[in-house]
């Protein structure tokens, strides 16, 4: 094996722009995984990702049952897109996903944010998206440190061993 001098990851800046269960949890798992390893983690929620930090929606995220080719029935059969159109199916599938995650000790969004911030992780909301969705600070969970621009977020994301991740 050749000797390589890798710079260890010390900080991750994660941008979450989508609001489905899987997109939000990808961001949360990565942020939590970073603080668990003793790294700094900062998460910037923008566009539909804002649902994950909006009090009204954060614990009721959904997954797409239409236009999601990776969706399968329990047992592995493909999930017919037309079935996903039936009212209630998406809610049922989403609830099932949440309960499956709970079994793996993956917490609901709000509790996950508690865990991340307890470990020193920082949560930010995108100013542009907050304005666009006509939200205010009071609509967002208390985990949010501030509503900032992407430029301000970049300025916090620098330093040796820093990585910016977009989900």
């Amino acid at each position, binding site marked *: 094996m050749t000797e390589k001098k890798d710079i260890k990851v010390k900080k991750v800046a994660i941008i979450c722009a989508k609001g489905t269960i899987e997109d939000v949890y990808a961001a949360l798992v990565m942020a939590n995984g970073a*603080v668990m*390893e003793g790294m700094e983690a900062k998460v910037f929620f923008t566009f539909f990702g804002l649902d994950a930090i909006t009090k009204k929606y954060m614990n009721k995220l959904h997954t797409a049952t239409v236009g999601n080719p990776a969706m399968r029935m329990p047992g592995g059969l493909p999930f017919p897109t037309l079935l996903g159109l039936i009212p209630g199916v998406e809610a049922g599938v989403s609830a099932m996903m949440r309960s499956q995650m709970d079994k793996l000790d993956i917490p609901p969004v709000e509790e996950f944010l508690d865990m991340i911030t307890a470990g020193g992780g920082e949560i930010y909301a995108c100013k542009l998206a907050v304005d666009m969705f006509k939200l205010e600070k009071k609509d967002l969970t208390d985990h949010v440190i501030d509503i900032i621009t992407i430029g301000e977020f970049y300025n916090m994301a620098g330093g040796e061993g820093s990585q910016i991740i977009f989900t």
Partner: protein
Amino acid sequence: MAQKTYAGVTLEVTEDGYLVDSTKWNEEIAKEIAKEEGIELTDKHFAVLKYIRENQAGLTIRKVGKSGIVDIKGFYDLFPGGPLKLSSKIAGINKPTSCV
């Protein structure tokens, strides 16, 4: 497999420094592993280590946080820079495999 001597006992350890045989663990060994990690163990630490040793299977930070012994913030304060890994190492159990 590497070997290390803690509290006068030579023990098999993994590449990452976790004890191979957790039954060989004792509190003196814990203190010396902790010292290597820059942690001075208190009674609170030992209460957490006891919980961790008794609940090794499927251990997660969330479970420790719900143990009633320490909350998650407190867990990070006790074992700064990677509480689940550090506490597992000091508790003499296997390296945790959980992502949460």
